[in-house]
């Protein structure tokens, strides 16, 4: 746990100075320029933006009794737990990712009986083999952040699916940005 705390400290420090551990892949002429994407997670680490993002999502306008009474499948089909998105080759939490996790932590504290599996996923540009390990690091990063917010570790399992189960089957950055994620599945309530 000490190591985890240290890791988190380092990570937040890195985020604060806008630094990025992973060197982006060598520039190549062939790939299309990283088209202006609507997903900030896809960009290389953005410097902290002073502009307040209008995306401070109120914890989902779902009626709480609906959450409490939903079946597991219904709950996961329209999950109040937000996925966390990552940059290419990266397992670092972005500020948006942390916001999603703040939301998730609040929910998990409110529904204190939920057990959750955090799935790590990758886009298809990485190799199938290495992506297994990368997906796991993404899931672990999300899990560590939740634990640091006080969610009991024993309620949070991780599993990596590498690039085996893309959420968007497309072959462009728009699809890739959706597929680099930590995804939350409620397994018991």
């Amino acid at each position, binding site marked *: 746990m000490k*190591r985890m705390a240290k890791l988190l400290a380092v990570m937040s420090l890195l985020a604060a100075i806008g630094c990025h*551990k*992973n*060197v982006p*892949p*060598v520039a*190549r002429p*062939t*790939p299309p320029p990283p088209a202006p994407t609507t997903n900030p997670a896809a960009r290389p680490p953005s410097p902290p933006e002073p502009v307040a993002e209008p995306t401070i999502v109120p914890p989902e306008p779902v009626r709480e009794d609906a959450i409490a009474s939903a079946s597991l*499948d219904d709950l*996961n*089909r329209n999950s109040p737990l937000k996925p966390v998105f990552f940059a290419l*080759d990266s397992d670092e939490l972005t500020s948006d990712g942390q916001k999603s996790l703040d939301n998730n932590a609040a929910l998990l504290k409110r529904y204190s009986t939920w057990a959750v*599996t955090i799935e790590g996923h990758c886009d*298809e*540009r*990485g*190799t*199938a*083999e*290495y992506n*297994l*390990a*990368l997906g*796991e*690091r993404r899931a*672990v990063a999300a899990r560590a952040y939740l634990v640091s917010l006080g969610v009991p570790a024993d309620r949070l*399992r*991780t*599993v*990596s*699916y590498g690039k*085996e*189960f893309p*959420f968007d089957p497309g072959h462009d950055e728009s699809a890739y940005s959706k597929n680099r994620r930590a995804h939350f*599945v409620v397994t018991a309530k």
Partner: protein
Amino acid sequence: MMKKLEALVAIAVLGAWVRAQPPPQQQPPAQPPPTTQQPTEIETTIRGEGGAPPRLAVPDFIAITKDKESVDTARTIGQVLWDDLNFEREFSFIPRDVIATVPAATSFNDVPFDRWRELNADGLIVGTVEKTGNGFKVDMRLYNVRTRQMAYGREYTGSNARLFAHTMSDEIHQTQRALRGVARTKLTFASDRDGERMTGTVEKRETKEIYIADYDGENQRRVTVGRTLNITPRWSPDGRSIAYTSYRRGPPQVFISNIFQGTLEEATKGERVGQNWLPAWSPDGQRICFGSTRDGGSSQLYVINRDGSALRRLTNDKWVSTTPTWSPSGNQIAFVSDRTGSPQIYVINADGVGAPQRISTSESYADKPAWSPPPFNEISYTARTGPGNDIKVIDMPTRVVRQLTFGEGTNESPTWAANGRHLAFMSTRSGKSQIFTIARDGKNLKQITKTGNNQQPDWSR
């Protein structure tokens, strides 16, 4: 090992004997005796003229029994034998359309040697197929067309036409070219072709199962019924088992399927063993190296006996260590670490002693090392070369890198054939993910799978 496979696929080479001797005496007098009959100086190797590759004629085999099954078997053997021999590029061939112009022999006694000689054939393969009780008796003879003497010959019994041809091809390569052919080796890979939906998830996810196929893509068969995600299969060195990564317990674990016995072993199991993936057999088949998160943190390398005993940790750092492959000697393991910020290939001693040595030095991203069998000493791997990946090969003594694919789709997961002369890999060049084979010089690309998505091939020893 191939002997075992052979037995298992039910060919019984019962009355087989090598007859590198002059044909038995019961030749009818109609057959003109070979002009240069000197039984003490039989040439058992067919040579090409002037050092060129021997030029072979491989006509369809002769059906002695005339039922349809015999006729089909005779034709299949001739055609598959041609393809098998052509695969190693040790011979040149009289084209099939030219062969069609030569009158077909009806037995070993009316072989038109003159015509084959006119066509500059150095060697001629003549075979007969005869239906027996529950299969066929097949007689194959490789003739030296100049001397009309048999250089190699053998009788086979069995029932599988393609396996007859594969066996002949391997024997011809062995006796004529001192080459270990791979016609009886097999591929394994993961496939989503069944289109079964994963249970236990609200997402639309399809299962993947482990398949096997002959080296030429024929006889594709499913070997797992996990109805879950089964990936990264690897043949055991004896070809009797396949280790793979399966999510059937939820988190990924290493399973071993003993495919001919239909039994399943769990190499990694128990509580709190984390996620386990990417098994790699030691060359003696006794141990398996794999990646695991069992001690917390990133994937690390472990070695375990194949029965699950004697677990030993091989790497111990905070970075990812994954995707192992053993050197042919079993003394070293190549693997992938991202300690520099990107995945790169390293080599460590198989006992874990000593610092890892970095192998890939000119790649932005490298994964899936596969160590070649002798006589080569090379590691093939997947390299990020653009928007996608390509297959490259590094020669270990010189560290010279060569590239086998060039940006057609993305290309991943190389694996070597047992003789080091071919590789199989996954490519999206034709659309979906498919398995391809390619010669070690980048020639002779061949698509092996066509149904569904197929990935992570492994080629049996």
